[in-house]
């Protein structure tokens, strides 16, 4: 653990930037057709419940991260093995997110550039940032949050005044009932993006006011959920469900549709700016979690030392996890949520909480008697 403290507001901002990271990039929850935004909002509620689990664990062990209290709860051996798996999990998802952004840049902007070049640059920036520690990440978050907000507001204004929104695309509401929506929630939106907030189980111990953790977390989640739902609703009303389900990056298509005053057109750069910034935070925070997890597991004092070797592993992993983009997307939507996210985000933390609850009650009784 480095000696650093972040404020509740910084936590909120980090959660927000982290959550919208890849969620604004992909056609999220499009299995729910025009009710995708609703699936996002219901997923948000589920995400808040998950955050409650992580927060409860945090309130039992307010000074140590997930990978360490795991060892206290389950004992040293089992806890260490599990912690190792968590580090692998964080690392794998970091690589996935990195791949997402590399692919996006190549498909939309730099068709002739190899993936390696795109990713290596991002990894260098992330490593540079990580070495500065969580306080600097948090402060960077605050600054870029302002910029993201400005971009977001101006984009929405531009979309509205260029008159491309057709709200009729959002109808009929709940065409096939709630079932497909709920199904989408439990196969996708609950885990991605909202369940991914488990990363903050590693970062919560840095918070300077433990009492504000719940409020900041829920506000951050809520704000990001609203923004994601808004963007999805906007995508649907501009492009229609058919077009979104066929596109890799619907938000890009939405922005490309903007035409205003004859010269504000092809604002692809806005898309690039907002997604790269948000993606940078997602990669950084996941990477930071795997970094402190590793340092914690192997008792390395100066975790910044690990940044370069882990960065190299991340880079190689991001290129080798899938041989083509379709495979990457298929894994991301079909396999990862159920077989990776579900156990790591829901089942294990849930079990940990139950054990921690009984353990703490026993200790309390001992103390009382």
């Amino acid at each position, binding site marked *: 653990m480095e000696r650093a403290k972040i404020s509740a507001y910084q936590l909120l901002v980090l959660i927000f930037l982290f959550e919208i990271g890849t969620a604004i990039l992909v056609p999220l929850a499009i299995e729910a057709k025009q009710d995708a935004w609703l699936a996002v909002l219901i997923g948000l509620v589920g995400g808040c419940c998950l955050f409650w689990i992580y927060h409860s664990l945090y309130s039992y062990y307010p000074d140590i991260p997930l990978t360490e209290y795991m060892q206290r709860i389950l004992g040293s051996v089992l806890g260490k093995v599990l912690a190792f798996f968590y580090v692998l999990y964080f690392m794998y998802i970091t690589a996935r997110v990195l791949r997402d952004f590399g692919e996006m840049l190549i498909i939309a902007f*730099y068709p*002739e550039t190899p993936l390696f*070049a795109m990713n290596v640059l991002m990894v260098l920036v992330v490593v540079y940032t990580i070495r500065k520690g969580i306080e600097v990440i948090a402060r960077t978050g605050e600054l870029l949050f302002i910029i993201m907000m400005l971009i977001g507001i101006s984009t929405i204004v531009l979309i509205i005044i260029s008159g491309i929104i057709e709200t*009729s695309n959002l109808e009929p509401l709940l065409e096939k009932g709630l079932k497909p929506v709920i199904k989408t929630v439990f196969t996708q939106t609950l885990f991605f993006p909202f369940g991914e907030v488990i990363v903050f189980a590693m970062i919560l111990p840095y918070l300077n006011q433990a009492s504000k953790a719940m409020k900041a977390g829920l506000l951050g989640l809520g704000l990001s959920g609203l923004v994601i739902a808004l963007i999805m609703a906007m995508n649907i009303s501009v*492009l229609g469900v058919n*077009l979104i389900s066929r596109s890799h990056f619907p938000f890009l298509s939405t922005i*490309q549709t903007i035409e205003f005053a004859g010269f504000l057109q092809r604002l692809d750069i806005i898309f690039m700016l907002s997604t790269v910034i948000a993606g940078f935070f997602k990669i950084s925070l996941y990477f930071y979690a795997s970094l402190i997890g590793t340092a914690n597991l192997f008792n390395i004092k100066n975790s910044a030392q690990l940044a370069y070797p882990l960065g190299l592993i991340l880079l190689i992993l991001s290129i080798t996890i899938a041989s083509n983009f379709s495979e990457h997307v298929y894994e991301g939507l079909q396999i990862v949520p159920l077989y990776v996210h579900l156990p790591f985000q829901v089942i294990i933390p849930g079990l940990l909480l139950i054990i921690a609850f009984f353990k703490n009650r026993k200790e309390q009784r001992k103390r009382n008697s």
Partner: protein
Amino acid sequence: MSRKSISLYLIIASISFLSGCWSQKELNELAIISATSIDKNEEGQYVKTIQLINPSNVAGGLQGGGGGQSPAVTVYSVTGDSVLEAHFNASSKISRKLYHAHANLIVFSEEVAQEDGIEDVLDAFERDPEIRPTARVVIAHNTKAGDLLKSLTAVDKIPAEKVNGTLEFTEQYRGTNLEVTLQDVIKTLTSEGKEPVISGFSIKGDIEQGKKMDNILKSEQDTTLETDGLAIFKEGKLIDWYQEDMAKGVIWILDKIKQTDVELDRDGKKNAIVYNVIRQKTEVSADTKHDMPTITINVRAEGDIREVRTSINLKDPKVILELEKELEEKIKKLLEDTVMRTQQNKTDIFGFGEEVHRSNPEKWKKLKSDWNDNYFSNLNVEVKVEAFVRRSGLRTNSYFSEMKDK
């Protein structure tokens, strides 16, 4: 530490220099395309025509020499078995990298649209990140699509701009054409219960003459590009052309009319009163209670009287009310005629199906498989029009009234 950072900088520097030849392209090494078109030749190959901008002939400026001596655009035609092959074949004729991102016009020939359907060629356009989804699509009427790009134009030096400008202003002031973007076409093609309509364009005059610089040196051009009707599609294939009033009716039902004119007969004089629609709102709603859905079209039009060629007392509110009634009838007839002809064509260009879908998804599931051919053509369509005359320009009564009194 210092050795580490030096090696890091070296890595970054080498990556940067390596990338020099990846996605970089100087602006003056690009062939900026202003418009493309797709035709088909006798062998069944695609003919892609590209209109390139000659920057030095468009921009005047210091060194350019004012243009005027040579045409603003250069046109190349290439053939290929697929759209993309034709695109790559173009490189044997052009010294620069073809750059699509500024192409704002895509022209399909009538042939391609009638025989293969436009869905055959659209995928290549949609997939390419360079091509604008907002590029306008038109159909070349009575001419080859390639020829449409070859004609030079006078005021707008780039023909593509002239086509787009014309489309924009006819939509705005006349309401007989529609600006349709690439994305719109694809959206309506894939949509259940709506079929595309695309504006037509044609060449008036000699095609060969239009390619020459002489054509734009005259005050009256021998060869001009003009909007020409509205192409009606069914399942991606062009099946009918609507002209003038019929086209206006389509656009009215699509709620895209911004301004247009409506003429009334009076005292036995044809078109004696001209009403200018300034503002209108058209709403389509579906009633799905019965087996056969009923569609209601509600029109609310506001406008001014802008031309009077008869003696009529415009000061009298009763007369205005009377005029409004007549206008309502006239507009209603226009829309009903349009709907009837479209029902005969059995293609739902108005999106009535989408409306049914929205209001009753359950019912739509049963109807959608046979919508165009069976249900749409037998729909009950009710048109309700409200027209308001708000003003009459700078004058009240026309001088016709005074002349009559004399």
